[in-house]
């Protein structure tokens, strides 16, 4: 794939996530199709798009409750995601996971997690198992900036480094730990610097540039697969929406969102493609195809029956 094709593919992939999130927001705000906690990743699309192209089918990805974008980029169909958020029987977990805690292992997506920082030790275990089952599996775990302040995260980083396990720790630093700025909660706001303390590689990456993310993840994945151990990548990004739908965001600083909109990945890549002379029709096509796919997926998802209450008690035990 030449560079223009790659960038158009990235733009399309980011539009798929943006369209999915906007559709889910519409269904959450507009009516009764989606209820409860929903955490959108609008503005953070470059991370999953850049990273997931470096994962093989047997690699294991663990995300957070802000995980719709990671799931979609990993290959989970939009219809299954929307149906899950809407409590349909056809949701990827039949309505048991919801927006913030769904999983689709058949696509190498081993779950969102609603407990901040919990996914890191689980990913370490996935990599550990790969050492014995011969699968050569890479584990990638995504967390937010606040999650690195959880004790479990520290334990996971240390154990992965001590055992030189093939894990890529991706921290999406969107500056806000839920509703609180990260720089008020840490003594060293450059989170990637912690990597050195664990004896692992680390880097700060432009998290709004899918190509930069891809390059960093490729290097980390190669290191991991060749026995060089884990890497901590800090992707600098921002969310253009609240922590959850309904968040009034009174904590935002003046001008922050305006600046963020100038740097957000879809606008940036669109501008770059235009400046490079790529035909407007091709740029528009990336958006239109994504929107059409999501609209179709949403219609199919909402046409499906609700999860059957008769099954609510199934699967607690084997």
């Amino acid at each position, binding site marked *: 794939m030449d560079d223009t094709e790659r960038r158009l593919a990235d733009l399309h992939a980011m539009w798929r996530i943006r369209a999915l999130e906007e559709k889910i927001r519409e269904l959450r705000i507009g009516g009764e199709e989606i209820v409860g906690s929903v955490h959108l990743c609008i503005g953070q699309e470059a991370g999953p798009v850049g990273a997931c192209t470096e994962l093989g089918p047997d690699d294991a990805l663990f995300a957070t409750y802000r995980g719709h974008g990671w799931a979609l980029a990993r290959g989970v169909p939009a219809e299954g995601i929307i149906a899950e958020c809407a409590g349909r029987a056809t949701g990827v977990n039949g309505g048991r996971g919801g927006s913030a805690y769904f999983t689709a*292992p058949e696509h190498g997506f081993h779950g969102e997690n609603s407990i901040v920082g919990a996914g890191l030790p689980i990913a370490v275990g*996935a990599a550990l198992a790969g050492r014995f*089952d011969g699968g050569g599996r890479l584990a990638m775990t995504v967390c937010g900036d606040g999650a690195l302040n959880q004790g479990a995260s520290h*334990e996971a980083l240390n154990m992965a480094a001590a055992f030189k396990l093939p894990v890529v720790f991706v921290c999406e630093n969107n500056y806000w730990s839920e509703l609180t700025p990260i720089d008020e909660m840490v003594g060293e706001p450059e989170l990637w610097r912690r990597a050195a303390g664990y004896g692992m590689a680390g880097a700060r990456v432009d998290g709004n540039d899918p190509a930069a993310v891809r390059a960093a993840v490729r290097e980390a994945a190669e290191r991991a697969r060749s026995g060089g151990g884990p890497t901590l990548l800090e992707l600098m990004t921002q969310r253009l929406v609240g922590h959850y739908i309904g968040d009034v965001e009174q904590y935002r600083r003046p001008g922050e969102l305006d600046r963020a909109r100038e740097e957000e990945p879809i606008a940036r890549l669109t501008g770059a493609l235009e400046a490079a002379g790529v035909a407007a029709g091709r740029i528009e096509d990336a958006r239109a195809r994504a929107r059409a796919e999501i609209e179709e997926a949403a219609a199919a998802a909402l046409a499906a029956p609700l999860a059957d209450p008769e099954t609510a008690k199934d*699967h607690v035990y084997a």
Partner: protein
Amino acid sequence: MPELIAETRKLKYGEAVNAALARLLEEVPESLLYGEDVGKPGGVFGVTRGLRRKFGERVFDTPISEAAILGSAVGAALMGARPIVEIMWADFSLVALDQLVNQAANARYVSRGAAPAPIVVRTQQGNAPGACAQHSQSLEALFLHVPGLRLAMPRTAQDAHDVLVAAVHADDPVIVVENRSLYFGDKAEVELGGAPRPMGWSHLRRPGRDVTVVSWGAVTGQALAAAESLAARGVEAEVLELTWLNPVDLDAVLASVARTRRLAVVHEANVTGGFGAEIVARVAEAGLGLDAAPVRVGAPDVRIPAAPGLAAAVLPGAGTIAARIAGMTAA
């Protein structure tokens, strides 16, 4: 699976655990055994001694990181491994309860069975002389409140072996709570190599017509001693030992109480919110008519002191148990 060869050996409780682990590492190729000091040192109680030498890197030591131990076990299990991990003292599991309660217990349910986390967590609890209050708690009721987790509390060497074999062959997350006061007791005949049993068994340790005493874990020994002393006074107590608390053999409890029409539960854990309350409630819900109000014997709701004399004053011993049971059969 290699052919099962039944063999009987005289083993202490800890040695029976070791024999079960050796067997499981042999017959379950996906099994891994790890935790703090379990590999090269062979465990602080020597329970895993020799396994690293025999099975190599599948047996290994971890950092002092309970969340990483339990979390990595969940992740490994999601990938098809069968991790058997040790939490050195049950008290230490409290620093990592997220991975048991929010993660392991949810995995099967949310995925509708597609991605279960069949981990086995070995830990030990209870009081032994001189142990401090952070090394003496009996925490089974905390785990038993969580749907999705299985739990057993083996007391004999045979059960210590059989429970582990059943746990590793089960497809649920199982917590096996041993008791360190049992590790170095007398040797007993242990049959090794039998087929894995389905979870949930109990033992009628002593038949009796006057009162049903339901107990589990090490304190069952005190309940049996109490029953002996009561027999000398003409009270025949039936002692039912629950090896598994989830699944629990409620049928055996109900059948016994239907015969004796009296119920006492005995556990080392604190009384309030203890699993004994659950047993009493289930018997009440079954509508069995009782000839005496049920009795719960356990530790009072205090912390466990370090000094042996103080600890003995709060833990249920044979004398206390016998007195409480005598009280309910006196009328």
